[in-house]
């Protein structure tokens, strides 16, 4: 028998994904073909078993709590201010001093909370940005492709970004010993164009991401999955240096780039 349904057709039929005409033809065939009917039953059985048993992993309570906090931060942001206008009017004249003091206290409290929240959101954003920069660096290491501009000459690399970035930056005239400029890529971090400067430090590779400064100044130094990340700002620029090299050498590279701005 050579006119059996293909495995893909049977599978799609089991999922209810065939167009009406094809589904009708498949149904007609299955009604008269025992092998196809048998395979269809097995596919349904397999689909149902996977559906029931493959939801096997549950996150730990602390993880769930942490993620809910991340999400909760946003929902509080969109919460309404309350229903003050619905409250009944009271005889407040005698208590005006207390009311004014309470109002000032509330304003102060709100302002402090807002500052705290803004700092936390900025910190989350920055951590996400550092993670994204780390991913780009790892992707660059994994790729065999050449940088978009291959040159150790700062007078070649810097002009290459003309018209590609809405800002400009400088490259150090001299680098610390055993460090070389390899080239650069135009990359995107958080949907914004950035310069990814590529350096060699001995046999290690390092990326320095240069972007326009849009948030409050932050200096960070953290380690993530064996990579060191140094974040710093200079004037209108925000820079993130990443490498798996010794932190001291990465710091020396970051200092050289910072001094050039």
């Amino acid at each position, binding site marked *: 028998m050579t006119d059996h349904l293909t495995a893909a057709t049977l599978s799609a039929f089991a999922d209810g994904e065939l167009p009406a005409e094809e589904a009708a033809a498949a149904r007609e065939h299955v009604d008269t073909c025992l092998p196809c009917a048998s395979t269809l039953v097995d596919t349904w059985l397999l*689909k149902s078993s996977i559906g029931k048993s493959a939801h096997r992993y549950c996150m730990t309570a602390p993880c769930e709590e942490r993620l809910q906090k991340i999400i909760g931060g946003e929902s509080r942001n969109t919460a309404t201010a309350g229903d003050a206008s619905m409250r009944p009017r009271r005889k407040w004249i005698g208590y005006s001093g207390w009311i004014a003091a309470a109002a000032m206290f509330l304003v102060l409290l709100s302002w402090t909370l807002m500052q705290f929240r803004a700092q936390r959101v900025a910190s989350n954003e920055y951590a996400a940005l550092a993670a994204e920069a780390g991913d780009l660096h790892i992707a660059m290491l994994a790729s065999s492709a050449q940088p978009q501009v291959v040159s150790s000459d700062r007078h070649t690399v810097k002009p290459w970004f003309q018209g590609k970035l809405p800002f400009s930056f400088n490259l150090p005239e001299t680098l610390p010993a055993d460090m070389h400029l390899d080239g650069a890529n135009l990359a995107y971090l958080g949907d914004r164009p950035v310069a990814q400067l590529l350096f060699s430090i001995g046999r290690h590779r390092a990326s320095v991401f240069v972007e326009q400064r849009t948030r409050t100044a932050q200096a960070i130094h953290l380690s993530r999955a064996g990579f060191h990340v140094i974040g710093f700002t200079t004037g209108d620029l925000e820079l993130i240096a990443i490498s798996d090299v010794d932190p001291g050498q990465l710091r020396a590279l970051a200092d050289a780039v910072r001094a050039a701005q």
Partner: protein
Amino acid sequence: MVLLRWRQKNREPAAAAPSFADLALPLLPSLYNVARWLTRDAAAAEDLVQESLLKALRGFESFETGTNFKAWIFRILRNAYLTSRSGLAAMRTIALEEELQEDSTVPESIVNRRTPEAEVIRMRDADALHAAMEKLSPPLLEVLLLCDVEEMKYREIAMVVGIPIGTVMSRVARARAFVRKELQAQWKATREVGR
């Protein structure tokens, strides 16, 4: 009268758009489950879900209310996985296989209704099923999870994975064929040990 009705209509409060929390919280278990299957590591899965949520939060303004949030956030999770260390490593080791041949028809031998994979499934051997699924390559595993566990339509899976619907169809079929083959092998091995 018409004016009054217009004014009344304007006074009705507009239906509030669901917040990120409303949409994302119910999906946390699913996101984690898929992340855990893909990364095969609890800590990596937690990191992946957290990173995806942060990215989704940052991009939520660009999300069009009323469109498919589940497909949108799963696409973010998948992209985050692809650029993660485990994702890069997994994808590097996979040769792009040929899509399922359209002429791969049902073999005659399947006429036996008590097939080995059916026997394993009927025995409710979830471990055997999980072991078979763990051997799936990430491109096949992800479509199988989205289809059978998350119950997404092929159209939604195509949106998440960024491939044509026809490719989703063949990948789902190939994933199932692979799992069946693994279950058959396990069943045969069990029978030989039992003899």
